[in-house]
Structure formats: C-alpha cells, structure tokens
C-alpha cells in the first residue's frame, strides 16, 4: 500500500542523505520525495511517498524517528489529509492541436505558463491521480518534457 510520510527534520547538511540512506540501506523504495524549509527557522519538512506493508511502514517510521536529526514523523495515510503535487509539462501544440490542448487545460484547471509557436508549457497541481489522468490525455498530442515535484501533504484541520 502507498503511504505518505511527513517528516520534520533539522535543516542541516547531510540530513537528506541520512533519510535517503535509511531507505536505501534497508532496501525500501522512495517513490517521491519533496523537501523544503518550513516557516520555523532551522527546520525542514520532507514528504516521502513509499510503498510497503504495515510491518515495513512501521519499521520505516520507527527508523526515521530514531535519526538524531528527526523531530517528528507522521504517516498521513492514517489521518485525513490533503495531498498535492505540481507538474510542468511541455506539450506539442502545433496547428490544429492547440485548441484541443487548451480545452484540456481548461478542464484540468491548468495554467499555460509559456507559449511558443509550436508548443505550450503547462502548470498543473493536484493529486497524483489527477496528474496521471492529464498525462494520459495529453500523450496523444505529444508530451515533450515533464517535471513533477512529488507529493506534498498535510493533515486536514478538525481531526477527530
């Protein structure tokens, strides 16, 4: 099962390597990884999506907590949470294709962030499913390049 882990860590050199090394050293796989400083100085938030059964995820969470530079680990799979990912797509939009691509842009609430005579660069945010759906729709027009951030996630308010 896919799990989303939210990990609060000290923002110092080597922390990412410690976390990533923990996964690789134990044969676990990181599906996506996103890391950036938080609003609190000196701290960073990592969002990692990974796949494993309950026993593996329990070990991953415990091992992450064991790292001296880790403050908090939450498995967001267990709580109500929101998840978003951003993607940039360079799509072939030459001639007659352009109108159709723009229609899809509207439906998926994407933004066109760059225009050239024969291609568009689109920005889209959403869940992994939404992004995958967009990719599969646009493939017929020709996706020249794609860059995805991986998921960022946060628990919802008013948790029971």
């Amino acid at each position, binding site marked *: 099962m896919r799990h989303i882990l939210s990990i609060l860590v000290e923002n110092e050199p080597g922390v990412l390597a*410690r976390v990533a*090394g923990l996964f690789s050293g134990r044969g676990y796989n990181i599906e996506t990884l996103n890391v950036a400083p938080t609003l609190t100085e000196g701290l960073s938030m990592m969002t990692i999506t990974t796949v494993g059964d309950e026993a593996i995820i329990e070990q991953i969470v415990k*091992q992450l907590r064991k790292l*001296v530079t880790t403050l908090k680990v939450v498995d967001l799979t267990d709580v109500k949470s929101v998840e978003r990912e951003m993607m940039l797509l360079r799509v072939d939009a030459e001639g007659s294709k352009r109108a159709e691509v723009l229609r899809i842009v509207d439906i998926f609430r994407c933004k066109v962030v760059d225009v050239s005579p024969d291609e568009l660069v689109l920005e889209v945010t959403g869940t992994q499913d939404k992004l995958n759906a967009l990719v599969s729709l646009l493939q017929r027009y020709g996706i020249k390049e794609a860059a995805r951030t991986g998921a960022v996630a946060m628990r919802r308010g008013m948790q029971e």
Partner: protein
Amino acid sequence: MELTGAQILLESLRREGVEVVFGFPGGAVIDIYDQLPNYPLRHVLVRHEQGAIHAADGYARATGKVGVCLVTSGPGATNTVTGIATAYMDSVPVVIITGQVPTPLIGNDAFQEVDIVGITRSCTKHNYLVKDVRDLSRVIKEAFYLASTGRPGPVLIDLPKDVQTQLTEYKYPKTIKMRSYNPTYAPNPKQVAKVAAVVRRAKKPIIYAGGGVIASEASADLAWLARSFNMPVTATLMALGCFPAEDPLWLGMLGMHGTYAANMAISNADLILAIGSRFDDRVTGKISEFAKNAKIVHIDIDPTSIQKNVPVDIPVVADCKSFLTALRQTLEPTLEAEPAAGLEAWNSKVAAWKVEKPLSYNQEGTVIKPQFVVETISRLTKGEAIITTEVGQNQMWAAQFYAFNRPRSFISSGGLGTMGFGFPAAIGAQMACPDRLVIDVAGDGSIQMCIQELATAVCYNLPVKIVILNNGYLGMVRQWQELFYKKNYCATCLDVAPDFVKLAEAYGAAGFRVTDPAKVESVLAEAFALPRPVIVDVVVDREENVAPMVPAGKSITEMILV
C-alpha cells in the same frame, strides 16, 4: 580564553572524564598530537587503526564509559570502519575522532581525503563534520551525550586540519539542547502493570536477557526478579554474565549454539520476558516456529527493535534498569500478601532438560579438546576473568564453557561477528581494568587479523593473555562445510601459519605451546601468573565441532546435539 581547535578537543575530552585515548597519528591530526602531551590523557599508540577502535570498544564494554579513538584522515579513518560497525551492532558507546583534510580541500580528492561522514552514516548512531571551530565544543558535548545515552552507539567527529589550528573563545557547554533527541527511559506505568499481571499468571515463564541488561547495569534487578518468581534465565551472547552461571535458575545461552535446556525452555514457555534483547536471527531460528505458545513481553530502549522480528504482546519502550526497577516496585509490595507461585512443575521440567542433554565433550586420549581448555580457564579463574573472544568456534566454546558470574566480563563481537576483535578489545579492557585478568580466547585464524597489536600490549606492559585454540582451520566455516556442504573444505584449511610461540617472543611477549591434555592446566596457570603479555598456543582437536547447533533456517528445537 582563546584556544585552538586541537586544544578545544583535548580540553573537552578532559572535561568529559576521558582518561585513555586509543589512536594512531597522521598528517591530518598532527596538530592534535602536538598538543596531546599538555593534557592529562593517556594515549595508547596502536599498530593499526582497527586496533584503536576495537580497543576503545573493549574499554567501553569493560567499564560502561565512553571509549575514545583518534585517527587520521583517509586510510586512518577507513581502517576504523569495521570497528565502528562492530560497536554499532553491539550498541557500544564510542567516540571516534578522525582528522580531515583542510576545509578548502574537502571534495577535491585531496591527498588522504575520504568522505568518512558519508561512509559511516549507516554504521554510526550519529556523525559530524565540523567546519567551524566555534561549533567544536558543542559537537563534542553532543557526541559524548549521544554515544552514552538512549541505545548507546558510536559517534564520529570528523575534524578538518584547519579547524584544529583556528582559534576561538573556549566555553564548554554545561547542558545539552537537542530538540530532536529525547530517548525514553521510564516505562509507561500501564505497561509495567500489564507485565506485573502476566508475571503473576505465568505457569511457564522464562527471562530472555540481552545486552541491554548489561548496558543499563540492571543485573541485580534481573536477579531479584528471577529469584523472587523462580523464573529460569537464558541470555543472548551479548548478555553472558548478566546473571550468575552458578545460579540454579541459569540455563545458559540460547539460539543457534545455545543449550538444549535454554532452547527447549523458551520453545515451551508460556511467557517470555525479553529484556534488552532483540530477537536476532541467531537466537530465534525459524521465526514461524519460535515460541509459538508464549506471550511475549519485550522491553527495549530502542523502539525500532520492538516488533522488528517477532510479534510482541506487551511492548515496553524503556531502559532495562528503569523498567526492572518499576516492575520491582510494583511486584515487591504484593509478595508478602500473595507469594509467588512455586512453578514446581515448570522448574522441574527445565531442570530435567538441563540434566538430559547438558553441554558436553569427551576429553579422552591424547588430543586436546577445545572445550576442555575453556573449562580449565573457567576453573582456574573462578569465572572472574574478563574474557574477550575472536569470532567463530573459539567464540562459541568460550560462551558455552566459561561460567560467567559477573557482568562486563564477556566481551565479544556479537552482532557483526568481527574476526580480529578480541585481542585489541582485550587491550582496551586491560587498560580499563589493570587489576583483572584479561584473556582473549582466539582461533588461529582470527588472531592473525590483528596480531600486530602484540606490540601495543608489550609496549604498555599489558599482561593480556591470548589462548589460541589452534585447529589449523577457519573452524566454524569448516564445520558448516562438513555439515552442510558435503565436506567441501574450500579455503578453510590454514596450511601455513606462523609459529605463534616464536611470534610472541619476536614481539617481546611470552609464548607457550601445549599439545598434551595433561599439561593444559599447568601451562595455563603459569601463563596467567606471568605479569606480561602471553600467547598460549593450544593445539586442539582439528575436527571438533561446536554443539549443539541449529542449522540455519530450522527451528531452535531442531538441534544437532553432537
């Protein structure tokens, strides 16, 4: 007062109470060595950096204090990696200080540069690269704190050469502020109450003690619990000595080379109190067959150890000493009103297993049995010596046939199984305990991995004894080849070996050789009485095997007994 980085390091070591540093100099630590004579630290110059880290490890295991190791950059640092991993696997508090090339050269493939922080990330509890001399005193304080608290372990400080010469105002922190590191010592009272209840109800309980009992100095509390409730005690390799071997409740070690009684008792128990042990695969055998009918209580300071290998009914995250103290406080007041159950049926069954298939060997004829040598050492030293071991058959015979009565008396590489560990560890233990007899039980294969440390032992007049159980083989691998690989003795026969007696003498130590069973006791006694390092080369039965043995992947009740 302004001090250089090198002075800050040494002054901070002094303030941490460090008395001995095991090290080997080099270009990247020469500034530290330049200052060393100005500080009240005893430096032990080893002959190989692996010796330094194992000696620091042995010192730490013998005392419970933090062992310290100082080496140079590049090869000096990488030579410690085996020892760091050894200490990590066995949760031993060690601080390793490595020199590093000057900060402007880091990452440039400079002479004698390696990314030792990167290399040791997975085998240290934590590690630091100090790039600013102003961070140094805090880092040292944190390193000692991290190494010795929670689940102990090795912490490495990588110190660039230019940081060692930079000046800064010296102030050693009195307290530690680490918002992300808060080990849990005290157990949850509800969990303790649950454990107390199951201890009361159990009809067939067993205590399965691990190295955590020794690390947390909880032996006396463990003995109280066992004796108050008539619970038999078994232990991992790491915990030998945590409960006196002479006590009738003692079953011996369990697992792959454990006793029949211990393996049968844990397999038939209805309650397993696992205290500071981690259900290593050498202990459990086939997991699906392990202690199928037992309720398992697992106490460990490291939450990652709990539920890792076996499902646990009552998990308790706590320091073993804190847990056992809390359990005693819960149970002791009730003992008068409600005495502990006698458990006569269970205890007599366990006693029968002990009698039925005890550890045994047959010392007949003219060939010396290795078990006889260990038993003789045990008898001569009354179970009071510090025994270190190498790895393999020698290690298992030492674990099986020496009657350990005190904690911190058995020093062996359990988790990593590091050949070459025992002798330098013995040097560290002897530095820590000058008044105790320290004996390395070795194999002829293992001893050759760090034998150059004989020079260290002679140089510092450390009267460490090395007893080589010399069978001319890499014995444990040969045993596996015999039993499971159709006697294909590939690369395990040590055809060429040094004359260990002459080798000892070449280094300035004493050497003895024994080939006659009748002379084992007298030669060992003579060797132990000598106030200098000694090698006793005991030529033993070449094809003697360690028994019992549980084949890999089998249940621990499926023992090969002879």
